[in-house]
């Protein structure tokens, strides 16, 4: 009996047959890819080892990483959130409307606080909407979040009359351009968010329940897991993090364009989560994997752009990465 528990798992047996170590590749594949990307860039990209390059990449990757953390939680429950980009647009459109208002001009610090708090709050409500659709009305996640994916950006454009809002507001811009200990503010924010949600997933009851719902929903229900509340929870978190990401984008640009904020972000975030080792069928939530995934996606984009490859080609490269990541995942399963 004892030896039975220690017999090699199916994976290690299959690798013996394939002669290829899928398990190790998929566990360290992300780090290997990152190392390769860095090496290639050091060799071919001009000025890659400049501090400025680091800052640009950190500020670019921050939004993807933050959204990818929320996406990872949603996917861990076997769901998906297509509305993240649209929620970013709504939050990003709201913030300038608030701090540029007469009220905020009269009460600068209260105005600044509101211009951060209100958009995030609105984002949370969007997440609640998604969550209720999925958990109570039984709408498939991809459809439920497609509703906001389509309508959210429309709402953002209606809010701003489709205008590009430009502004100069040092207080608000700190979110996008501020530095702590010489590194961009949003880099630190990513770190804090990642640590907090790593803790949630690995150390709290809520985190354990997320994995249980994604791993076997019936078993979760039978053991008293409030399945609906858990599902609503992850969509609310995902939307809240998207709201924060929307604010960062606006702050970096000192401008808010509802048509462009968070455009195609859902694909970047899903790609980052998948590259990071999140299983699309649920039950796994590797938070730092998602951060690593976001960094890889960002670096690929940067590498191509910095070497003069067209944006369109960069998109194709991104698709290639996703396919590769899913392929490696499949290999691990068999």
């Amino acid at each position: 009996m004892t030896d039975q528990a220690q017999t090699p798992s199916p994976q290690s047996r299959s690798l013996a047959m394939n002669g290829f170590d899928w398990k190790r590749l998929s566990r360290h594949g992300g780090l290997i890819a990152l190392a390769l990307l860095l090496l290639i860039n050091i060799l071919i990209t001009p000025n890659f080892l400049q501090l400025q390059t680091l800052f640009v990449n950190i500020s670019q990757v921050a939004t993807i990483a933050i959204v990818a953390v929320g996406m990872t939680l949603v996917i861990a429950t076997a769901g998906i959130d297509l509305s993240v980009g649209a929620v970013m647009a709504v939050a990003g459109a709201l913030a300038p409307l608030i701090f540029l208002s007469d009220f905020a001009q009269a009460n600068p610090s209260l105005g600044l606080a509101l211009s951060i708090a209100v958009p995030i709050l609105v984002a949370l409500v969007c997440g609640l909407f998604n969550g209720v659709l999925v958990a109570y009305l039984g709408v498939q996640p991809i459809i439920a979040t497609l509703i906001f994916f389509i309508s959210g950006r429309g709402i953002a454009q209606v809010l701003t009359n489709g205008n590009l809002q430009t502004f100069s507001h040092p207080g608000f811009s700190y979110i996008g351009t501020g530095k702590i200990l010489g590194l961009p503010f949003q880099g630190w924010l990513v770190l804090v968010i990642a640590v907090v949600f790593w803790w949630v997933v690995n150390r709290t009851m809520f985190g354990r329940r997320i994995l249980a719902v994604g791993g076997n929903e019936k078993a979760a229900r039978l053991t008293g897991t409030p399945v609906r509340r858990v599902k609503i929870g992850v969509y609310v978190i995902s939307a809240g993090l998207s709201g924060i990401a929307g604010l960062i984008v606006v702050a970096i640009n000192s401008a808010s364009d509802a048509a462009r904020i968070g455009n195609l972000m859902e694909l970047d975030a899903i790609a980052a989560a998948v590259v990071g080792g999140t299983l699309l069928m649920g039950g796994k939530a590797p938070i730092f994997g998602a951060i690593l995934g976001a960094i890889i996606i960002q670096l690929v984009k940067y590498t191509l752009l910095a070497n003069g490859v067209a944006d369109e080609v960069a998109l194709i490269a991104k698709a290639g990465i996703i396919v590769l990541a899913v392929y490696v995942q499949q290999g691990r399963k068999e």
Partner: protein
Amino acid sequence: MQPLLRMQGINKSFAGVVALSSAGLEIAAGEVHALIGQNGAGKSTLIKILTGVYRKDSGDIEFEGAPLNAQSPREAQDNGIATIYQELSLVPLRSVTENVIMGYEPRTRFGFIDWKAAHDRTREILSGFGIDIDVTRPLGSYSTAIQQLTAIARAVSLNARLVIMDEPTSSLDDREVETLFGVVRGLKARGVSVIYVSHFLDELFHICDRATIMRDGQTVAVREIASTTKLGLIADMLGRDPEEIAAAGMTDLGGGKGEAGELLLDARNLSTRRMLRDVSVSVRKGEIVGLGGLLGSGRTEAARAIFGLDRLSAGTVSTHRTPAGFSDPAEAIRGGVGFLTEDRKAEGIVPEMSVRENMTLALLPALAGKFSLDRAREEEIVKKFVDALGIKLASIEQPIRELSGGNQQKVLLARWLALEPDLLILDEPTRGVDVGAKFEIQSIIREYVEKGVGVLLISSEFEELVEGADRIVVLQDGVSVTELRNPGITEEKLIGAIAQSHEGAEA
């Protein structure tokens, strides 16, 4: 007269395990023929060989006087054998017509589908069964019964000579069952034969002409329904002498109440929309109460209703701590009740999670501190149960899917024992585990009962019930009909009670 179908001396083994041993089946033209037997008796293997899903190892099949050796379900269908499965293989979003004529569409001169002819033909087929519906609407907008009938209509329109129905009434309500019976009679009137597989013996007496009874992979009897009784069929299924069952069942039924032990669970007159009609059961401290009955009698459904998984349409559940019963499993768990599911894979384990995480899933609220779970206490509890239950594993961090069935079952049992429950509902606690683990699990249960836990035990193994339970509540068709108490319960008495109550219910 020559039979429509004759299967003789069918043998089939799966990886050395004998599933069918010289089994046979004979169906006359225009006959409704029941195929019955306990789980694992070989009914579905026999059917699947007939319909080309499995290949027989040896034996002869003759259909309409010619040898038949279907290599695929499609080939069986082309030969006039149609199967109506429980999970329908139709397209709910397409119209009724499209579902009926799919693959055999009438064409116009120009090669397009002749919709008018198609609708007309569909209407004609359905009205032949007394069904008058709008055939242009999506199939999914109709009830399960109508969908099932559409599947049958499709089969008939393909000129099926033999229709196989596998548990056709399991998801139908009473009225829908009547409609289905009407259709079965309609088939019979057209000279189409029906093989009717069902766990509900009552139904057989309504619509079947003969029954073939299978046990342990063999055909043990063929009975004329008109000249047999339910008791007779059950005796055949279980391989007992009906008179012995009847005699044993007459004595020592019921008995007075009044043992010690606080009342833990008192469920009265439970009924749900589908299965339960009137089930009452109580459990006292330190007592094992068995739920006896054939498959489909409502045992699992009663357990689910008590645990708050299924909504009650009538009746009350009260426990010593929560007089109002439970509206969901979380409440039941807080009320000191645990529920070991019969379906370990689908409802029990979370395969990717570790043994530790699986074991403490129901215990999480007790482990939750202000900011995080108490990992030290969690590990301590898990290790304690791994030792106490003798769970064989490499590490408590090992994914549970890597454990053997018996060890998985022990982890799930520990999941509930760790809650220190007052009442445990155990649905087939030893199903699919090896003999050693089975004995261990039984003795663990006994040990906890001696400490005062009350157990509601569901088991298809009569031995387990007879030896383990202090009392056995016998269910039949969703009704608790009688109660046996130990000492004095024998397997014969239990079987007798199950059969007796059948007879009683009819009277």
